[in-house]
């Protein structure tokens, strides 16, 4: 059923319309980033005299170049750890029906419920005692722990839905649980890994209060902290902030766009192969 029919065309038209409605606020954001601060025209009206001044101002005022490096460091390492430990943990949690497995899953799920205010101060003093304040490594450790419940939840749910046949076949070939996991399960759940990566990247990249707390006083700052360091109560330079936002969301969108194709392809071949 690969033909492009008139039904497909109607669906396409509807979806494009929906896409436009969804994207409209983003358009306004970009549009404002391209306007001069004193441009009083409607936010819907396309910027007549394009200015990239906001972008270069945001870049230099917020020291975004340096902040992007710090954010990238924190994001890459914490998400790598999150994926590795969560996928590994989810495997027995999804497959073993014994009591300890259910209890452990339950304990992980508690982590989804806890408000951040509870752990804020005790964790801060621990990081202080470890001598990691002002060091981005503190953030890597923090996110690696914080995002475990969410990621384990995602992995467990999807691994449970994978039929056991593949592992059985592998076990007949003499594969232990380690090999079953790496050669059967992990490739099979690749779309979930993609989802886990992108959703964790979002959280880590955008988090604000934790980096502000842990990195304050050091010259290293993450992107949101740098970006909002010039939003004041009295003079809000939104054109600058929106320009900065456009700069900082671009890497994530490009990564998502690039990733989704390979993930989907990889999965389809994994199933059929």
């Amino acid at each position, binding site marked *: 059923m690969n033909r492009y029919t008139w039904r497909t065309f109607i669906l396409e038209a509807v979806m494009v319309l929906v896409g436009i409605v969804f994207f409209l606020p983003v358009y306004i954001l970009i549009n404002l980033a391209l306007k001069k601060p004193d441009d*009083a025209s409607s936010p819907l009206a396309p910027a007549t005299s394009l200015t990239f001044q906001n972008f270069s101002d945001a870049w230099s005022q917020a020291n975004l170049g340096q902040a992007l490096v710090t954010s990238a460091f924190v994001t890459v390492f914490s998400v790598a750890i999150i994926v590795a430990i969560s996928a590994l943990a989810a495997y027995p949690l999804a497959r073993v029906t014994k009591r300890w497995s259910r209890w452990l899953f339950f304990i992980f799920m508690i982590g989804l419920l806890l408000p951040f205010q509870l752990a804020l*101060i005790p964790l801060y003093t621990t990081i202080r005692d470890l001598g990691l304040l*002002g060091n981005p490594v503190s953030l890597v450790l923090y996110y690696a722990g914080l995002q475990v419940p969410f990621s384990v939840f995602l992995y467990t749910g999807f691994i449970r839905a994978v039929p056991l046949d593949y592992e059985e076949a592998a076990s007949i070939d003499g594969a232990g649980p380690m090999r079953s996991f790496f050669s059967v399960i992990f490739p099979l759940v690749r779309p979930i890994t993609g989802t886990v990566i992108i959703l964790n990247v979002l959280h880590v990249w955008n988090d604000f209060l934790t980096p*502000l*707390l842990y990195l304050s006083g050091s010259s290293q700052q993450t992107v949101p902290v740098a970006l909002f360091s010039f*939003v*004041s*109560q009295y*003079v809000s330079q939104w054109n600058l902030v929106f320009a900065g936002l456009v700069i900082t969301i671009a890497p994530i969108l490009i990564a998502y766009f690039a990733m989704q194709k390979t993930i989907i392809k990889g999965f389809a071949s994994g199933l059929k192969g």
Partner: protein
Amino acid sequence: MHKKSLLALSVAVAAAVSLSACAGGSSSSSGDAKTLTLAATTNEKPALDAVVAKFKEQNPGVDVKYTTSALDQYQTTTRTQLSSGTAPDVVFVWPGEGNPMATQVVAKAGYLEDLSNQSWANSFPSGIKPVTQYNGKTYSAAVTFSGIGAVYNMTAMNQAGLTPPTTWSGLLQFCSQAKAKGKTAFELGAQTNWVTQLIPYSLTPTLVYGPNPSFPEDMSNGKATFANSKWSDAMNKYLQMQNAGCFQANPLGTDYNASLAAVAKGNALSVIQVNSAVAAISQQATQGTQLNLLPVPATDNASDTRMAGAAGSTYGVNAHAKNKDLAIKFMNFLESPDGMNLYAQTNKALPAVPNDSFKVDPALATLQQDQKDGKTDAFMDQNWPNARVQQTLFQVVQDLLAGKTDISSALKQMDSAYTQGS
């Protein structure tokens, strides 16, 4: 991902973590005598940029690392850092006690250095001195003096052929005249919660605190309450202004920024604001727009009219500062006429200690005169015992404007917040 690459990745992660742990460890423990750390709210950033540059110029080899963050985040992070012993050497504090980071709150908890021995400690005018002190000792240094009044767009006023009112009935008349010209008299950005308090703050000096200067003490002794004072008069006048059409159509849907933009464009003739609005409006308005900050009349006798004026930007020294000597040196610089004037000039405020070498912005001339004449009263929250009272004020004003409560129950809520303590 294959087993091998996963292994390789985890090795790489471990290596990177331990590497940067070493690198970070040595740089973060910077307790050297040449580096000062400081934190403040983002509102202070332009002024800090200026004074820090000057301070470094006067003290070669000294580095000042300062972090600025929005008000909410500033309060949260700095309180956490103070209680964990990791706060910067110099911290921005609020004057008085009605704020979680106010001088008296932080000093009471033992985190501020006693600065009573500094030469400037006794030089503050009587309106400022008490809010820098706790138990008779000076714990913070006020750098600027700020005021609340109506910021008029004089250019638009002249075009409309109107002049700023000097009496209460004149004010109501001004509202209807502005309306007849298709203009808003007073743009009100009541969606931004702290803006809601500015009208009571500009009316109560004339109605409550001027006639009875000991009102704050009476309240703390339990002899006076909001509900049984002229505060009800002030709230009543707030609603009278709303009914007289002084405000635009949707004050609760308008935020601080939008309210300033309306005045900058001349759609509104005035906004009741803090002096910093003068700078913010002139940034957006066409060049040459004349602005003027004037007191808001509350009675029909023009000479009664007083203004809310109080200590503005204020700093304290962390009692556990790594670099206390340098911190005190910086404070002394801030309190020198040079430092104070530079700070006030950049932040469009007045210096906390009036001096002749300060070149006042014409828009702030009236505030300066009132400060000299003693016709100002401190911002009310600086004398409130906890931060709940102010937050309750924000909430009840929004409810009053929406017609969801009445004045007497609004003021009773404030009274109960006042006595609740913490």
